[in-house]
C-alpha cells in the first residue's frame, strides 16, 4: 500500500432513495480508498448501484450519509459550484453513451475541459490528443457525423485533455460492438498508462475488469474487495 494519502477516500458511504415502496438502500456503509496511479474496476449486476457509487466518488451527487474525500478535499462541505471547480482540470469522464455535445465539433468537444480549466495552449494540446486517438482528420466533424467508436475515441481524448489525476469511466464499451469495444478499451488503458492517471472503471465486462489493478464487487449495497492484482 502506498504511503501517500489516497486520492479518493470514501467513509461509511450510505445512499438511499425514496421510491413508491418506501426507502430503498442503494449503498450501505461503503468504505473505499483509491491511490494515485491505481486502476480500479467496480463490478456488479445491473441496478447494483455502480453508477451511483461513481457519481458519489466524483462529487456529482451527495451521499445520504458518510463522506467522500477527493484529492484530500471533503466533498460534502462544498456546494455544487465548489465541487464543479474541484473537478475542473482534475477529473476526467468517459461515459457509456459518449456524451459529446452535439452542437460542438470533435475539436471543440476536446477543447471544452481545457478551456473550462483555463489551460493556455488548449488548441495545441487538443489537436495532439485527437491525433493520438487517430482522429486528426476528423476535428471539424460533428458527433452525428462520427461512428460510435469514433465518438468514444473523441470522448477519451476529451477525458485526457486536461491531464486529469483521476479518470472515471462508466461502462465505456457498453454501447459498442465487441471489436470496436476492444479497440476503445485498448486506447483507454494505453492513455491511462502514458499519463499515469488513476482510473475508476465501472463495468460488468469481466475482460475489461481483468485489466485493472483492483476489482471491487458491489452487491446488495456492499462493496466486496477482490484480491489485488
Amino acid at each position, binding site marked *: 500500500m502506498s504511503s501517500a494519502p489516497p486520492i479518493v477516500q470514501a467513509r461509511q458511504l450510505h445512499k438511499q432513495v425514496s421510491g413508491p415502496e418506501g426507502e430503498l438502500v442503494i449503498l450501505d456503509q461503503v468504505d473505499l480508498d483509491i491511490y494515485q496511479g491505481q486502476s480500479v474496476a467496480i463490478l456488479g449486476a445491473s441496478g447494483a448501484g455502480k*453508477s451511483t457509487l*461513481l*457519481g458519489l466518488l*466524483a462529487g*456529482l*451527487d451527495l451521499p445520504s450519509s458518510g463522506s467522500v474525500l477527493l484529492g484530500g478535499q471533503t466533498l460534502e462541505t462544498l456546494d*455544487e*459550484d465548489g465541487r*464543479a*471547480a*474541484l*473537478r*475542473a*482540470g*482534475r*477529473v476526467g*469522464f468517459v*461515459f457509456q453513451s459518449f*456524451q459529446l*455535445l*452535439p*452542437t*460542438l465539433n470533435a475539436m*471543440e468537444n476536446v*477543447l*471544452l*475541459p481545457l*478551456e*473550462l*480549466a483555463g489551460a493556455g495552449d488548449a488548441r495545441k494540446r487538443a489537436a495532439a490528443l485527437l491525433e493520438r486517438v487517430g482522429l486528426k482528420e476528423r476535428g471539424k466533424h*460533428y458527433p452525428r457525423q462520427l461512428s460510435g467508436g469514433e465518438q468514444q475515441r473523441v470522448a477519451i481524448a476529451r477525458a485526457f485533455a486536461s491531464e486529469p489525476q483521476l479518470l472515471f469511466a*462508466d461502462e465505456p464499451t457498453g454501447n459498442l460492438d465487441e471489436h470496436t469495444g476492444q479497440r476503445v478499451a485498448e486506447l483507454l488503458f494505453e492513455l491511462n498508462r502514458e499519463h499515469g492517471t488513476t482510473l475508476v472503471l465501472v463495468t460488468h465486462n469481466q475482460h475489461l475488469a481483468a485489466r485493472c489493478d483492483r476489482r471491487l464487487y458491489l452487491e446488495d449495497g456492499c462493496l466486496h474487495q477482490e484480491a489485488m492484482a
Partner: protein
Amino acid sequence: MMQLIIGGLRSLWRERTSAEIRLLAVALVIAVASVTAVAFLTDRINGTLSRQAAELLAADLVVSGPYPIKEEWRQQAAMAGLQTADSIAFGSVVLTEEETLLTAVKAVSDSYPLRGRLRTAGALFEGEQAIDAIPQLGEVWVEPRLLRELALNVGDELELGASRFRIARVLTYEPDRGGNLIRIAPRVLMNKIDLPATRLVTPASRVRYSLLLAGPADTVSDYARWLSPRLSKGFKVQDVTDARPELATALKRAQSYFGLVSLMAALLAGITIAMATRRFVDRRLDGVALLRCLGVSRRRALTLHLSEILWLALPAALLGSVFGWLTQLVLIKLLVGQLPADLPTPSVLPVVQGLLLAMFLLLGFALPPLLRLGKVSPLKVLRRELAPPALSNLLLYVAALLGSVALLAWQARDAKLTAYVAVGSIAAVVVTALSAWLLVWLLGRLRQRVGTRWRFGFANLARRPATTIAQTSALGLGIMAILLLAFVRSDLMDGWIRALPEDAPNHFLINIQPADVGALRERLGQLGIESAGLYPMVRGRLTAINGQPVDTESYENERARRLLSREFNLSHTLDLPQDNRILAGQWLLADPLRADQISVEAGLAQTLGLKLGDRLEFTVAGQATQAQISSLRSVQWDSFRPNFFVIGPPAWLDSMPATYITSFHLPPEQRGRLTGLVRSFPSVTILDVVALMRQVRDLLNQVSRAIEFLFLFSLISAATVLWAAIQQSAEQRRQESALLRTLGASSATLWQGLAAEFLALGAIAGIIGTAGAAAVAWSVSTQLLELDYQGNPWMWITGMGLGLGVVTLAGLASLGRSVHTPPAQALR
C-alpha cells in the same frame, strides 16, 4: 369513431399540463385573439353600415355634380311624383373674432334628409336627439369639433362669407356624411335660403350640387333610366344598391388592412403549432408503437391523436375570442372620432370565425407533422431507434405556404390584394431569412475566436441554423413592423414638413373671383404679404386627343383613368412659373401671338402617353377648345406654389369662367392678419397647408397606433415561436448542462453560455428588424419622397432593445432551470 373522439378528449384532459399542449393552446389563443379582435370590429362597423344602408344617401337616389341642377331634371322628378331635396356642399372658412377654420359647409332645403334623420344636441356633451327640421334662417348647426377648435358654444355667432350666423345646435349625425374617415374639415349645416347672401358661391367656385330623390322603387328606377342619357359631364347618379358609398369603401379597405395585420400573428402561430406538434409527435412515438403492438390500426392511432389535438380548438377559440373582444374595445378607443359613434353590439359570428381559424390552423399546421404517427412500426418497441422518417421539410413548407395563402385569401377577400400581400410577404421572408442565414454564418465563423462561454452559446445557434433562422426572421419581422409604424411614419412626415424651405408658402387662397383680383393684390401688398403670383384657374375635362375621343376605360394605368375621369386645372400666363423648367419644345413666348398652343406637365404627358405636337381638346363649362402641345415642363409640386398640369397663353382661355389662386408664406403667429382679408373677400377660401398636413399626420398617427397595437400580437406570437424552439431543445440542453457541470463548469459559466446564445439571437433579430425598417424608410424617403434620409438613433436603440430584451428574457426564463440540472443526470 365516437369512442375515438371521446378518447381524444380524455387524452387531452390528461395531458393538459404537458408543455407542448400548453404551447399549442397559447399559440391558438393568440391567433384567435388577434383575428377575432378585427372580426369583432368589422362586425360592429358592418352592423352600422347595413343599418344605415338606406340612410347613407339620405335618399333613394342622388344626382350630383359641379353645376347647379338643371330645371328640366327637377320638373321630371316632380311629374313622376318623387320627393326631392337640395344639398349644396363646398369648403369655406368660418371666422370668429380671432380665429379662422376651414369647414365643410352644406346648405340644404326644407325636405332634407329624405331618408334617415339628423341628430343634434342642445349643447356640447349633451344627449343627442333625432330631429325633423333643418337650421332656421340665420342659424347654423355645427359639428362638435368646430366648437372645440374655435372655442365656441351654442348661441355664439360666426361669420360665413358675407353673413353672420348664430350657432343653434350641435350636429351629431347626418345620414349622408359620407367618407368621414378622411374628412378633415368639420361640418357646418345651413339653410339653403341663406346661401346667396353669403356670396360664397360663384359660377367658378368648387361646389357640389346634389338633388336628392325618394319614392317608390319603380318610379325611382324609371327616373334613373330617364336621367342617365341626359346627364352632363361631371354628374353622377348614386343609388343605395350600386353606388358603394365612400364611407363603406374606406372602411372596407381599412378593415382588410387591419385583417391582414392581424393575420401575421396567426401565421406566426402556425409556425409555433407546427413546431409544438413535432415535439408532441416525438414524445408519442413510443406510445403509438406500443398501441400498434397491442393491435391498434395505424388509422385508429392517428385519429386518436388528431382528435386530441382538434379538441384543443374549442377552449382556445373561446378564450381567444374573449381576448379578441377586449382588444377590439381598445381598437375602438384608439380610433375614436374616425368611426361611426354608435356601433351596435357585435354578433357571435366572430367567435365562430375564431373557432374555424383554430381548426384551420390545427389542420393546416399540425396535421402534416402529425401524419408521422400513422407510420410508426410496432417493431419500435423492440428497437427504439426505429423511428418513422420525419416528414420531408419541403412537404411541411409547401403545406404551410398553402395554408398561409388560403388564410390570406380568406382575410383579404380580394384576389389581387392576396397576390400582392403573398408575393410581398414571401419576398420579405426570403430577404429576412437570407439576412438571418448570413448573420448566423458569421456567428459560426466568430465562434473560433471567442472564449468557451460565447462559443458554447454561438455553437448552439450555428448548429440549429434552420431553427435560428426561423426564430430571428419571425422576431425581426415583428420588430420591423413596429419600428416602421412607431418611428418611420412620423419621421417621414416630420422630415417632409421640415424639408420645406422656411419661407415656403404655407397658405393658399383659392376661389378668388376675377373681379377681386386687383383689390386682393393691393390688399396683400398693404399687409406686406409677398404672394407667389395670382394665377387664373379654369376647370376643364380632357375630351379628345388628336381628334380621337378619350376613352377612359382604354387606359391600363389607374392614375391615367383617375385623371381622365375628373376635371383638370388649366391656367393661362405668358411667364414661365418660377419653379417650372422646359424639358422639351419651346415655352409659349417663342410664339406669343399663337393662341392654340399649350405647355403640359411632363409627368402627366408620360402617364397619358402625350407627346409634343399632339392636339388636345378640353371641354370647359360645356364649350370645347383645342390646342397643340408646344412644350413639356417639369413642375416642382412640393414648392407649394400654384402649379398647373396645362398652361396656355391668355388668349386661349380668356373667355372661359375662371377663379384665381395664389399662395404665400405667413408665419403662424401672424395668422390673425388674414381675418380682415377674409372679411373683405368672403368668397375666397384660405387653406392652411401646414395645419392640413398636421391634421393628416394626426389621423395617420391614430390609425397606425391601432395597427401598432395589433402588431403586439405578432410580437407575442413571435415570442411563442421562440418558446417552441427552446422547448424543442430543452431536454438536450438539460443533458448538456449536466455534462458541462460534470466536466467542472460553474453555474456562472452555464448562465453566461445561455446569455451569450440569447443575446446573439436577440441581436440578430434586432439587426434584421431595424435594418429592414431603416431600408424601407431610406427607400421611401429618397426614392419616393425625394428627401434626404436622416437615420433616427432611437429607432436602433428601440429595435435592438426589443430584440435583446424579448429574446433574453424569454430564453433565460424558460431555460434557467436547465442550469440547475444535477450533474449525476449525465450518468443516466
